[in-house]
């Protein structure tokens, strides 16, 4: 059955760009705070603090950022679900996002807390940055790929 009510977000031309700005601020906060820990694991940035301490100090803000990012993202998705569902860049983005969040709250967290040896730390930080980078690339490419999956 088709929904009889249209999405109220689509009634204003402003809602989409405003949500996009909120989305950008949300991921700058979440990915930025995760990157601070990753940079530490790579030996860049706040090197005088242990990674475990940085993780502890940023985890609340990371979570706040992720919530803002996911909530605004869901609303953006709701503006045209069929388009997103058929967009391969979006599907890759969602796969990477799922991996990135799971990785962040399992391996990444455990390794950062244990103040690991450099090779191990660098590998985990690189995987984390690569996954979040892939999420951003996927997000931008949504607007540049028009052909749906066939």
């Amino acid at each position, binding site marked *: 059955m088709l929904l009889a009510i249209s999405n109220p977000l689509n009634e204003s031309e402003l809602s989409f760009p405003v949500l996009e700005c909120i989305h*950008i601020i949300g991921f700058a906060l979440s990915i*930025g705070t995760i990157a601070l820990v990753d940079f530490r694991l790579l030996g860049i940035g706040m090197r005088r603090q242990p990674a475990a301490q940085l993780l502890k100090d940023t985890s609340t803000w990371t979570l706040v950022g992720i919530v803002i990012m996911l909530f605004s993202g869901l609303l953006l998705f709701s503006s045209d679900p069929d388009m997103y569902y058929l967009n391969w860049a979006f599907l890759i983005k969602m796969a990477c996002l799922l991996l990135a969040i799971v990785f962040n709250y399992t391996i990444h967290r455990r390794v950062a807390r244990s103040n690991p040896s450099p090779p191990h730390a660098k590998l985990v930080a690189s995987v984390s940055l690569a996954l979040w980078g892939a999420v951003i690339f996927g997000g931008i490419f949504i607007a540049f790929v028009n052909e749906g999956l066939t």
Partner: protein
Amino acid sequence: MILSFAQWVQSSAFFTELRLSWFVYPAVMSLHLLGIALFGGLILLTDMRLLGLAMRTHSVTDVVNQLRMPKRIGLILVATCGILMLGSKAEEYYFNIFFRIKVLLLALVFVHGWVFRRSVYYNTVEIDRAPRIPAQAKLAAFLSLLLWVSIACAGRGIGYIEPPLDKIHAIERFLDSNANNHG
């Protein structure tokens, strides 16, 4: 004069290739956004430390000094990608109100850095010694947050302005000159 310069930049072979490539242009845009995520996040953290909202177990000196270099490298990445995008659509950007706002805000960022340089960003030892974070430092952080969030929003706004087609001729001129070269 700025307009004809913009048209000349945009019609150069390099920026024409960049504009017409279906994947290089979005890749540059993705790197721009990735830079914003990584280093914009560091700006947010620094400002929130000055406001006393985050990283309170670390001194202001530690946060400001250790993040200075990563933020500069990040700014170079974001600005380079931004200039590449600007160059490939320079003529449209010239007419774009959000681009003009963004340039103005970026100029204000430099003014901000210059104004608070001595009292805040190179005065962190004094700030750490004070019983409370001084109002001047909080003001600097608040203005920085306001400026950078506005810059991000203005940047997103650029994409929503339709170019004034009656005023834009660069592409035809480029095609004409190409036809003449080959003719």
